[in-house]
């Protein structure tokens, strides 16, 4: 059996080790609120490997084609949706702005100049063709 000294208020008692308490609080907060990079996902993204291309699907409902941009720079694909809608009612005029973005790091050997993107039913599909050298090649070896 252990005898533990009784404290009226563990938070303010000088004999309590505050570091331990703070660590425990940090741990609880970390568990309750996941790291920001997980929360900061603006929209979900799927990645697929095709035989001669990498395919990215991004769920971006309610945009116009011209509000979406797909950019590749330094091996990073950035998909951005930027929408500015102005609604005019009988009495009020309101402007709504929405900007979402995701960055995906890309593998090497992609033909950046041949990227194709389509937008259908609120889903953006980006096809990034691979360069010839990484496509699996079948070589027939003659056995003599």
């Amino acid at each position, binding site marked *: 059996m252990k005898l533990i000294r009784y404290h009226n208020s563990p938070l303010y008692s000088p004999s309590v080790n505050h570091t331990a308490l703070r660590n425990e609080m940090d741990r609880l907060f970390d568990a309750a609120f996941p790291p920001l990079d997980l929360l900061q*996902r603006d929209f*979900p*993204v*799927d*990645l*697929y*490997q*095709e*035989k001669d291309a990498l*395919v990215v*699907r991004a*769920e*971006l*409902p*309610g*945009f*116009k084609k011209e509000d979406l941009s797909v950019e590749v720079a330094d091996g990073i694909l950035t998909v951005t949706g930027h929408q500015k809608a102005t609604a005019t*009612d*009988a009495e009020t005029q309101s402007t709504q702005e929405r900007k979402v973005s995701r960055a995906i790091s890309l593998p090497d050997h992609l033909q950046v100049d041949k990227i194709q993107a389509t*937008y*259908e*039913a*609120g*889903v953006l599909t980006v096809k990034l063709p691979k360069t010839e050298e990484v496509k699996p090649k079948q070589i027939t070896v003659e056995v003599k």
Partner: protein
Amino acid sequence: MNLLTKKETTSTANRVVTPRYDVRETIDAYVLTASVPGVDKTSLETTVDGDKLTILGRRAFQVPANWTPVHREIPQTDFKLVLEIDNRFNRDAIKAELSQGVLTLTLPKAEAVKPRKIEILG
């Protein structure tokens, strides 16, 4: 206000998820917008049965056989939203529009609930 209240959906064999939706009131209608990405016209059903308005959207996308998933975040569940509507709506004049994964339903108010001016006689 309990107009357009969400009805608890009973779980069916297929897993469904409630889409994100919004209801806006204009002078003569209620406008509902629901986010149903990946759903096209042919896979969306909007039905009014009694006092139940049901929106069912099936994701049309199937991963092609030659695509290997590397990383997946987009859920594959279908969308279902069941709302209760009463006689404050003119249910014969409900209009639906689907554009880039966003469904816009216009539910006109019934004549009885529209604002009206009452003339003073005499």
